[in-house]
């Protein structure tokens, strides 16, 4: 009930054009963070990679999230090669454990492991993981508003904070003014802030249990023209996830 009230209040507040125009970059990013990291979430996702050989490869996994992205658990359902493998990320992905089903081994990974690509896709674990990265790792500055495919958007530039371990020098985000869903996100190289590495587009936005949810995400690598598509097959924000799920015991299940 409290969650529904908060969502209604938030939606009314977000739709208020006078107030919205006065939003700073930080405030917009905080709203994005709230939308993208709900209190709890259980989802089944499909990731389709177009490989350099032109073949399409499909990965299906279950994703569980709690405390606005502070706890995350991911478990592969497909393909057979990865079936049963999982990743547990706590403290906004500062602590990571990987479970390998065929050897029944759990291995704690350091943060640098987030730099690796997720199964050869255009998403790194860093792109997938830490819920509050936009707020914690980057300083936000609002740029001039633009339209993306006819939709009014805030444009926010996120510049990497000095002591941050983020993998990009800056990000530029186009945020739908009506619901605070980021529709497009450009990623720039850590060393060359002018070099765009890849961009993410989010579409097929549906309001599910009161939360605007982009059901389709496409990451395009501008350097090698590869593409990874991610779709939400099902999602439940009203699920009650036990804390025990986000433990090594939960990871092994």
């Amino acid at each position: 009930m409290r969650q529904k009230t908060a969502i209604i209040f938030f939606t009314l507040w977000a739709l208020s054009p006078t107030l919205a125009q006065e939003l700073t970059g930080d405030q917009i990013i905080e709203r994005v963070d709230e939308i993208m990291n709900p209190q709890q979430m259980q989802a089944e996702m499909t990731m389709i990679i177009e490989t350099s050989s032109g073949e399409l490869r499909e990965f299906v996994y279950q994703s569980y999230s709690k405390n606005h992205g502070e706890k995350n658990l991911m478990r592969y359902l497909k393909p057979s090669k990865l079936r049963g493998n999982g990743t547990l990320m706590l403290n906004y992905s500062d602590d990571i454990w990987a479970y390998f089903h065929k050897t029944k081994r759990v291995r704690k990974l350091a943060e640098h492991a987030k730099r690796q690509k997720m199964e050869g896709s255009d998403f790194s674990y860093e792109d997938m993981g830490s819920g509050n990265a936009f707020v914690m790792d980057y300083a936000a500055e609002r740029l001039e508003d633009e339209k993306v495919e006819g939709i009014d958007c805030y444009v926010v530039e996120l510049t990497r904070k000095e002591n941050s371990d983020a993998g990009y020098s800056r990000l530029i985000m186009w945020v739908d003014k009506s619901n605070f869903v980021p529709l497009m996100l450009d990623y720039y190289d850590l060393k060359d802030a002018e070099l765009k590495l890849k961009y993410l587009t989010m579409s097929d936005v549906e309001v599910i249990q009161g939360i605007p949810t982009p059901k389709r995400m496409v990451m395009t690598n501008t350097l090698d023209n590869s593409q990874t598509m991610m779709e939400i097959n099902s999602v439940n924000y009203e699920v009650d996830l036990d804390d025990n799920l986000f433990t090594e015991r939960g990871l092994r299940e």
Partner: protein
Amino acid sequence: MRNMIFLSLILVLVALGNCKEPDFFGYFEPQLMTFYSHKSDDWALLNSNKLRLDIEVKPGKKVKFGANVNFYNYYGTTAYNLLDYLSPEITAIAQPHEQYYEFAYKDSIELDNVYLRMSFQYADVTVGIQQISYGTGYAWNPTDIFNRKDVLDPTYEQPGHNAVRFDVPLNRNVSMMVIYAPGDNWNVPTALLRLKARLGRFDFSFCGTTTPWKQTFYPVLGYREEERILVGGDLVGQLMGLGVWIEGAYNHMQLTEDFWEMTAGLDYTLRNELYILGEIYYHSEASSSSDDYTLNDWMSYFSGLTRTIGQSQAYVFIQYPITDLIHISSSIIGCINDESVALVPQLNYSLFQDVELTVFGNLYMGNEGTMYSKDLGNGGQIRLRVYF
């Protein structure tokens, strides 16, 4: 034994017939291995086929049955004599009983897992044959009394062990694992207690194990069993951006010399995704010079009783994804005492969604009589794995 396994399989399949949604999966792994024998001045070729068939079923929300059967088939040069790969000084004393050192790969069927896991509010209980792996080391795990990793291929699956295992979460950050493995004799089991906890960015654990330890002494082929009590611990976490870990154990032996083992390592992923891992290992009772290696040391190493022959070893692993489908990597393993090195270059090509091709090299570069002597047989392997 085979009849028993087949009977078990039939019983399992009949039982599964009454359960809903059993999952069948696994992989087929044909492998071609070749290596050069300096003694016979010839290349040997060993081919194998492995079929791993997994079954998992959840008869209830808190109950899980899991099993996997491995079918192995070998052909080519399946038999060889271990003495052909050792220095003449070592083999001289074994010559009268040369036949005892012959080894043959035989077609076999093995169970790595046949277990029932029941989840209760305060514990998970797993009964049956199960893979048991713990410890923070990558190439060596001094606290793991059940397994010894192949340092040339340390992430390969380990065999299962017949045991009863209890996993008990004590609170959010502390858990306890208790294992009772009866082995050959109910009165002399292997028993393990391991406490694991989180503190800041680190996981650490303490463990105590007791086990009946069997040893064969070469060349007299004497046999002895003694009690081994292991007390150890491990730590893994992050320090200045690096992944770091340490694992060590003190072993009290009832009849032979006590010893301790330790491993420590670190890893890092660069921005360009180059992954680097380094690890060192020390065994207090192993020989510090190749002049002191004995036939018994070599045979204990080959049979998996010990993790080393030389006292100190170092391991380096480097991996880089050259495309989304191809990873290249190399392991460099060195025995610090005798200055011998083995190089394992590797190429991994993801051919299709569930088809992987791996090409390994096994290049031993040490002098005669050293731990990674070129006499051990340079060669390589081609491994294809098809998951289903």
